[in-house]
């Protein structure tokens, strides 16, 4: 039996699961949706250097600087070390730069001034009003790959994972938490999972879990809206050198560029609305840094919810709340043994958060094995033979993409590619083959196209799944991986999800693409019962 139940399949929960597994503590992770259902996939993908927080939140900056270096080492499959710069614009407060540089140095953030004219040659898109630039070790990190890597490592050591399992209640004996009650969201079945300890890493949903034990935490769900631009507008992360605000970070990631973010407190962590005024503000602010962003093609908008907590004396704006984290041992704080919660934090520092949480758990369980998560790579290097087999099928460039997308389960991908039509392209933008699609679908129970999209990037390019989602659903039916009767709903579900992001980002140059999608899908589904 598991000794620990971990709630939440985001970065923190998956990091905790790996840490527990490496310390030999049997555990099961439960997640209400797919892995990375929440904020760990709904952010800008920035692996912080710490620069952003240096002035206002030096503790968070220091944590970021340390963890940034660790993650580059242990998770090369998820990190694109593109580097970053902070740009000082003529219209911003010139005195801030000096304060910022000194704060970075104090917090251990490597910062180096670079000649602005040289930077203009390297990054021709930056604003003509940029007057100074500083290099920092920012990077882009794929949250989905990071989490699936941690999960694969934990599973290899015997940990278990239950996705689409929602925690409906905590099991409580007297005052002690003794496990969780979960509902399988796919089948509706209920199940109880008993454990010595429950670790609540539910991110923005943390307060909903503690409320089941009658514990009220002062948490804030802070919604951020982001834009996804077609193509790479820059080759590195571009930050605006001023106190952190809206629309001041561009992060290139794969074939797209993200612009983040806004910050609006919301009542409910499931509130992922995308207000038009926030989209308009981002478009305007983004163009301050990169003028071409005013007319570049926006593929979609999306929203994520930051889990922040209110420290003493915090100001009114959520921008003033700390980005650091806190481990709450509810035995000590509230007289409720058996429950530990992690509040706040950032994806960049997920590993340290997991380490500290598992330290507390280990002391309760009497385990003295030290944490080794910073010392060992999350995954072993890929098997050379498997890599060669994939290269034979799809060539070197695409092999690199597949190695990154599938840090675990590569052997299955190789085998599926070797099937007669395995290399047929299903999604042109992201070069997703039939073999990759089949291998991923095989590895999941009853997958949706969104589950597949997160693992392959299918549907994340120009057509936003209008063509490739249609094809993928038919291929899954053909391969016996989906019921033919279910295929239309699969493609429509993917489009409904994509459309929420596309429609929120209008108007933009993508209006034509939006009409094309609308025309195609009303042609397929219009006039029929839905």
């Amino acid at each position, binding site marked *: 039996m598991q000794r620990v139940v971990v709630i939440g399949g985001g970065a923190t929960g998956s990091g905790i699961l790996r840490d527990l597994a490496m310390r030999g503590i049997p555990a099961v992770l439960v997640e209400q949706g797919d892995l990375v259902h929440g904020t760990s996939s709904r952010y800008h993908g920035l692996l912080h250097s710490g620069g952003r927080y240096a002035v206002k939140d030096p503790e968070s900056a220091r944590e970021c600087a340390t963890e940034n270096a660790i993650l580059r080492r242990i998770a090369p499959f998820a990190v694109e070390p593109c580097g970053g710069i902070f740009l000082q614009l003529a219209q911003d407060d010139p005195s801030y730069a000096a304060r910022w540089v000194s704060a970075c140095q104090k917090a251990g953030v490597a910062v180096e001034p670079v000649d602005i004219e040289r930077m203009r040659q390297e990054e021709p898109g930056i604003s003509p009003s940029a007057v100074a630039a500083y290099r920092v070790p920012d990077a882009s990190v794929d949250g989905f790959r990071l989490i699936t890597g941690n999960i694969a490592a934990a599973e290899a050591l015997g940990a278990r994972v239950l996705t689409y399992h929602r925690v409906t209640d905590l099991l409580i004996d007297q005052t002690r938490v003794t496990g969780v009650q979960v509902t399988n969201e796919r089948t509706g079945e209920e199940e109880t999972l008993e454990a010595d300890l429950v670790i609540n890493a539910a991110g923005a949903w943390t307060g909903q879990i503690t409320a089941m034990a009658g514990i009220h935490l002062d948490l804030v769900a802070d919604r951020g809206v982001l834009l996804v631009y077609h193509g790479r507008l820059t080759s590195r992360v571009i930050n605006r050198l001023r106190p952190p605000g809206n629309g001041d970070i561009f992060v290139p990631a794969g074939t797209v560029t993200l612009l983040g973010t806004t910050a609006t407190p919301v009542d409910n962590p499931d509130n992922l609305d995308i207000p038009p005024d926030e989209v308009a503000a981002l478009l305007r602010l983004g163009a301050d840094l990169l003028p071409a962003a005013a*007319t570049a093609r926006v593929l979609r908008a999306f929203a994520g919810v930051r889990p922040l907590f209110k420290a003493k004396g915090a100001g009114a704006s959520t921008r003033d709340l700390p980005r650091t984290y806190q481990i709450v041992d509810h035995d000590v704080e509230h007289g409720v043994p058996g429950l530990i919660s992690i509040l706040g934090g950032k994806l960049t520092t997920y590993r340290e958060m997991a380490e500290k949480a598992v330290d507390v758990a280990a002391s309760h369980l009497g385990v003295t094995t030290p944490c080794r998560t910073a010392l060992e790579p999350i995954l072993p290097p890929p098997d050379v033979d498997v890599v060669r087999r994939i290269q034979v099928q799809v060539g070197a460039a695409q092999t690199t993409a597949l190695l990154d997308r599938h840090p675990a389960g590569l052997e299955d991908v190789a085998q599926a590619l070797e099937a007669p039509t395995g290399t047929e392209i*299903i999604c042109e933008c992201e070069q997703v083959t039939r073999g990759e699609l089949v291998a991923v679908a095989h590895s999941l129970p009853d997958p949706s196209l969104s589950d597949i999209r997160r693992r392959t990037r299918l549907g994340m390019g120009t057509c936003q799944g209008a063509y490739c989602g249609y094809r993928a659903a038919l291929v899954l039916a053909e391969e016996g991986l989906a019921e033919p009767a279910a295929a239309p709903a699969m493609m429509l579900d993917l489009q409904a999800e994509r459309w929420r992001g596309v429609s929120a980002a209008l108007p933009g140059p993508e209006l034509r693409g939006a009409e094309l999608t*609308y025309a195609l899908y009303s042609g397929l589904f219009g006039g*029929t019962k839905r």
Partner: protein
Amino acid sequence: MKKRSHTYDVVILGAGLSGLMAALGARRAGADVAIVAEGGGALELSSGNIDLLAGPWDALPDGHPYRLIGADAVRQGMDEFVAAAHAMDLPYMEDVGQQNQWTVTAVGGLRSTYLPAPGAAVVRPGESVQVVGFRGLREFHPGVVAEGLHRAMPDLRVTWSWADLPEGLAGLHTLQIARRLEEPAYREQLATQLRSLNTGARLLLAGVLGLDNAAAVRNDLSAALGVPVAEVPLLSPSLPGLRLGSALVRHVQRAGADLHLGARATGATSEDGQVTSVTCLTAGGSIEYRAGAFVLATGGLLGRGLDVAAPSPGIKAAPASVHVAAPAPARPLHEVIFGLPVDVPAGPLADADLLAPGGHAFVRAGIRTDAHLRPQGWTNLHICGKMLAGYDPYAEGCGGGVAIATGWRAGLLAGGATQ
């Protein structure tokens, strides 16, 4: 180089369904006509079925193109289309006494339409059909279609199966398969393959049955198998739409209109509300088109007749000290040739639900006109099809009808204005 120049009575900009109908209308009025267009319109995305109207006429909003030209003009345009289609051997058939008929979509949905394309899979309750797909044609799965049909029309008797294409054509593009099927010997082989599957039910096949000789392909298969054969259109390219486009182009040329493709209109000149010329860029240089009247049939957003705000000035051109402010266009759409004002509905541009019953505001954007389809202040410029404001062809099920009726009307008016 001296700019080349052509003069016509009527110049039509755009060669989609509405532009081609406008050419027929202008020819009927006796005008000397040229169609000038960059490409061939959006028919390759179309099922080839012609929608007229899904809901009741009385529910049409004010300013809808049908209301502008009136029911009689709509009727007249549709009659002219049906007559033209018969003349080009595409027998579009109205179902007398019925408003609409049910056609099968590529996912087994049922879509109501007024004029199904010839050979389109139209189904009626109680009948038996067999859906057949071709192995290796990834755009079509017969089981998906059959299961969808079964849900949409429970008393239809549906079976499904896969067939192999002769000579192992798996993996070929839709158009390549369609061309092969134009060869009588090849379709004889296909009939042989299909014979073993034959259950006596009507066959609904994946929509690859020929391009220009589709009727012969269907008839031969049908004769060889002893059952009627119909086609389910694919998502894209959709052959029934392509067939209509190419047949209509030939028909319009036979009717005496000149067709100039590969010509992108870049600007216009005018005097006192009269368009005097339109300049087009072609591979061979710039050409000026002069005419007594012009028809704008450039297809809205999909046809690039409407575009989003002009691109920003080159970044490097800006002096280093100047801060470039981002444009914040309240009404971001513009009409690309004449710079006509574009009517964009107030409020959100799109519903968050892709298939919202009320449709999406951004597709209602377009040019407002008078009953003669002229924008305010212009005397010899007529607008038709998707360039017109005030309708959502997808939600209202009226795309084909509006293109045909306003195209015909605009052509007649432009042609008459020159007499």
